[in-house]
């Protein structure tokens, strides 16, 4: 994928060059084979980690690369275009590091972040539960008072990297007070009583393990608490604001990859004596795809630049997630159409892109929930 990008620094250009080399040599060539085998490519994450890509937006003093969101997200976009399981994995890992980086005490940051950002460890983010998805504040996993520390019992569902992660950023209930009773905890994967279920058998993105994570009397020391007691839901939502931009970037990457295949194919396939790209019905479709992709990229980058500037960006992040993932679903569906029968078989990657696109409309807040967030922001409360 060669996309003309406006990058803010030479440093960012160098970074994108490195990412281009890594995606071409280490990520893209494995995607199709590993996806059909449903194998999680831990070694690819190690390679990316060694290259410094698992802590990009965090401070250098803790092992990050101090890159603006604007740059970090374009890295995610490139990775996702090569292989969604990897791009989304980097996004989820980065999201899992956010609570400690943004709300941790200086001691927690010093103790935990170098490992979390250093490239060897992989994180998971545990919010959803079997009975609590969109209504995340209804979560029931309990972190009870236990001689100063916590005793955790409950089941988390749909956890990306469940069973393969090295640490879990957990949202659990410390009081029966709805959203105000939730706290954020840092849990190492080796904690006694923590176990993961069999990975879900998914429609796509099969190389990214999604599993239930059980907490059976997991004992945690008081230092496991990240932020204040009862602050967990606010932390979770702040993390998701950023995570949604990660999902938007993934969607743009997958859509771009599908478009690249479609446009290449349309330039070669001949019917009725001409290239199908020369039929206006096709070229208009390709024109719409290209326009939608560019618009989605501009929207997530606009939100990212607002975040980088320290401005409120939550509503725009919801818009970017909504627009980019709906766009990705349309564009990947159209890419299958451009390839005709060849689009529907596994010899070409577009059917995989279409299956991958669907999950992006669901994760980190379904697109209905994004509309709910945006709707609340744009309408004034009823004065009556």
């Amino acid at each position: 994928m060669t996309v003309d990008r406006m990058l803010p620094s030479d440093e960012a250009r160098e970074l994108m060059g490195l990412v281009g080399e890594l995606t071409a040599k280490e990520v893209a060539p494995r995607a199709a084979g590993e996806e059909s085998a449903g194998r999680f490519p831990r070694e690819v994450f190690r390679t990316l980690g060694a290259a410094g890509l698992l802590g990009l937006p965090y401070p250098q003093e803790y092992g990050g690369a101090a890159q603006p969101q604007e740059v970090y997200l374009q890295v995610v976009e490139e990775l996702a275009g090569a292989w969604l399981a990897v791009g989304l994995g980097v996004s989820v890992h980065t999201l899992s590091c956010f609570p400690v980086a943004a709300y941790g005490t200086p001691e927690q940051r010093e103790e935990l972040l170098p490992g979390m950002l250093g490239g060897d460890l992989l994180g998971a983010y545990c919010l959803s539960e079997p009975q609590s998805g969109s209504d995340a504040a209804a979560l029931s996993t309990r972190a009870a008072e236990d001689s100063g520390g916590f005793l955790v019992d409950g089941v988390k569902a749909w956890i990306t990297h469940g069973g393969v992660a090295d640490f879990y950023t957990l949202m659990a209930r410390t009081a029966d007070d709805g959203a105000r009773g939730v706290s954020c905890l840092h849990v190492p994967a080796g904690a006694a009583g923590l176990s993961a279920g069999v990975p879900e058998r998914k429609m796509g993105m099969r190389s990214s393990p999604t599993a239930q994570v059980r907490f059976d009397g997991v004992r945690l020391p008081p230092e496991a608490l990240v932020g204040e007691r009862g602050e967990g839901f606010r932390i979770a939502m702040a993390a998701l604001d950023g995570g949604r931009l990660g999902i938007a970037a993934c969607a743009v990457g997958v859509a771009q990859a599908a478009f690249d295949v479609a446009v290449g194919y349309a330039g070669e396939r001949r019917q009725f004596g001409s290239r199908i790209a020369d039929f206006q019905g096709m070229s208009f479709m390709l024109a719409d795809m290209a326009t939608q992709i560019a618009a989605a990229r501009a929207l997530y980058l606009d939100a990212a630049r607002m975040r980088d500037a320290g401005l409120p960006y939550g509503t725009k992040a919801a818009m970017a997630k909504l627009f980019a993932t709906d766009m990705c679903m349309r564009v990947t569906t159209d890419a299958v159409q451009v390839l005709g029968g060849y689009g529907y078989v596994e010899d070409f990657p577009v059917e995989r892109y279409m299956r991958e696109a669907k999950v992006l409309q669901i994760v980190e807040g379904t697109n209905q929930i994004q509309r709910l967030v945006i709707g609340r922001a744009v309408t004034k409360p009823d004065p009556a």
Partner: protein
Amino acid sequence: MNIVVCVKQVPDTATERKLRSDDKTLDRDAADGVVNELDEYAVEEALRLKEAHGGEVTVLTMGPGRATETIRKALAMGADKAVHLSDDALHGSDALATSYAMAQTLKKIGFDLVILGSESTDARTGVLAAMLAERLGTPQLTLANKVDVDGTAIAIQRVTDYGFDKVEATLPAVVSVVEKINDPRYPSFKGIMAAKKKKVETLGIADAEIAAELVGLAGAWSEVAEFAAAPPRAAGTIVKDEGDGGTKTADFLASKKFI
């Protein structure tokens, strides 16, 4: 241990490569310059030896100004500093002249071990390691797929048609490596940033005490007399299976001496 690793910038093999019509040398502006692939293995080996035994890794590149891109890549992988031998007078140097210029530079900068890739993807002469060793008066250990250093003793496995030879020598020495030797690392983002601050010393021929008449096109012992573009690929042969497809295919392969 003071390790010097020789790195060459070559035209990307993925792009079309051309010779210049005026002086019949490689047209270095016609294609993107990249690190000669085998040299990445040389850099990796140098870094591993340094990690195991301590010391310093210096990159040595002979080439035009734009070869600094290649130097940066080797520095980003982790080399400590670089020497860039660059002078218009060197343009058109053949293997003998190049080995002379490099040897003079190596004498000037000093080394315990010189490591290089066993050949470059552009000229593919594969003789530089031997020539350098001869000019420097050191042992040559070429085509290594394994290198062990113990104090001043060095041993390699030299790849052969039948397996490998074990070659031993005492430092200082010149080693050339093949791609089986290791798996070169990618530069890290931090490495790329750090490389910008590393020292690159540029030397001209006078600085390295290189005699102008022994290098460049004029000093070359070999000459490109003539060249022509590779003939376009001929159309393929289509074998129609009329019950004898197997025989026809076998005949075709036999005519090309594949079977």
